């Protein structure tokens, strides 16, 4: 990696996104990696390395990667991190930045579309409401207008209509 390709301000950019505040505290002990259940199965998810790459300023490599989307949000690392880096929150900050750069995992584009139009991640079909009725459970409305409005207010509705790549 040539030094001119690094963006030394990237880490500061991350600290300004909610959740990214503590990234510069990381001293690379690797406690996050040791307890990570995703890393135990797939080595390409390496939270310690993602933080190092971010602090070094490897902006494009980090934001365009597929591995930032693999955090299972179990918070094991967050509980154990001696520097309170709050790694799952850092991952959220990085993913939010990636989305702004036009990188979004296709599954998340799908999630945005579902939540933004129906107000829920798992749509309620007529079938579901019929099943619910049989069990004596209350009916659930299949969409939510206020959530649709909220998505317009934050601009997330546009993201769902374009879909986004991976």
């Amino acid at each position, binding site marked *: 990696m040539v030094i001119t390709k690094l963006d030394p301000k990237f880490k500061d950019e991350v600290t300004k996104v909610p959740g990214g505040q503590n990234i510069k505290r990381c001293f690379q002990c690797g406690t996050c990696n040791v307890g990570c259940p995703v890393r*135990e199965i797939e080595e390409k998810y390496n939270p310690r390395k993602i933080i190092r790459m971010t602090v070094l300023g490897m902006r494009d490599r980090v934001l365009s990667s597929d591995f930032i989307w693999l955090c*299972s949000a*179990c918070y094991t690392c967050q509980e154990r991190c001696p520097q309170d880096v709050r790694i799952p929150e850092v991952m959220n900050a990085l993913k939010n930045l990636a989305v702004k750069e036009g990188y979004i995992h296709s599954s998340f584009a799908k999630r945005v579309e579902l939540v933004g139009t129906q107000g829920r991640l798992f749509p*309620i079909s007529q079938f579901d409401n019929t099943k619910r009725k049989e069990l004596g459970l209350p009916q659930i*409305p299949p969409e939510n207008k*206020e959530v649709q409005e909220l998505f317009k207010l934050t601009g997330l509705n546009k993201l769902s209509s374009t879909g986004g790549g991976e």
Partner: protein
Amino acid sequence: MKYAFFPGCLTPVMARHYELSTRKVAKKLGVKFIDVEDFACCGFPIMSVDQETALLMAARNLSIAEGLGLDICTLCNGCASTLTEASKKLMHNDRLREKVNEKLEKIGRTYKGNARVKHFARVLYEDIGPEKIKSQVKKSLEGLKFASHYGCHYLKPSDVYDKFEDPEFPRSLDELISALGAETVEYEEKMQCCGGVILDIDDKIALAMTQKKLDHVKAAGTDAIILICPLCGSMYDRNQRVVERRFNVAYNIPVLYYTQVLGLALGLDPKGLGLDLNRVKTSDLLSKLA
């Protein structure tokens, strides 16, 4: 005890047995639920995409509960942590609350910062308590061995939950199980994540995470996994056959919601607890009780 009932996205569609049994045991134990049509997604699924929108969605739900003068009771661990975190942030940070309200007001809502959030398992543990539950047991589950699974977001981030439980060595669900007369079994990597959050991102990794837990539970020898989150439930129960096929293994481990076994112990009609809706058959377990 009265709460605004927050069933979340997953439970009403894929874990109706959880919802059904929760409503039944709540009624029996004197917890009143108010159904709220206006509730929508807690915000968790889109936190990775845009935290601002996610927080607005959480705040919107909180404002609805606040308007009713009620605290929220959730069934899903993800909803519990997302809404609890939002409620804490908005309680202590006036500037953030003002910012959130600027947008909420445009949809006719406002949030003053007063709503609190509790998972139903925490309501059972804190508001009612294992001792009182024990005193109400009509049909002891003695002889059954259960492996508890708490689910990550029931405990973590622990600072969001005011450290009500030890995130590495929790006891509350085990105590609730013991109160029913059943035995709890320890197993390797008890706090292992189910992988559900990344199932739609990378199912190879997610299902391998699920498999690990099933392996460890099987090795410990148990009659069932007992859990309190619909996402964990969907991974261990609904996807158990998928894991078995993919990894060429056999488990056949029943996976029940705590509310289902609580209902059995309280002497409620098993038919009303949705025990026919669990994917892995519960009939062997039930015959042990008979």
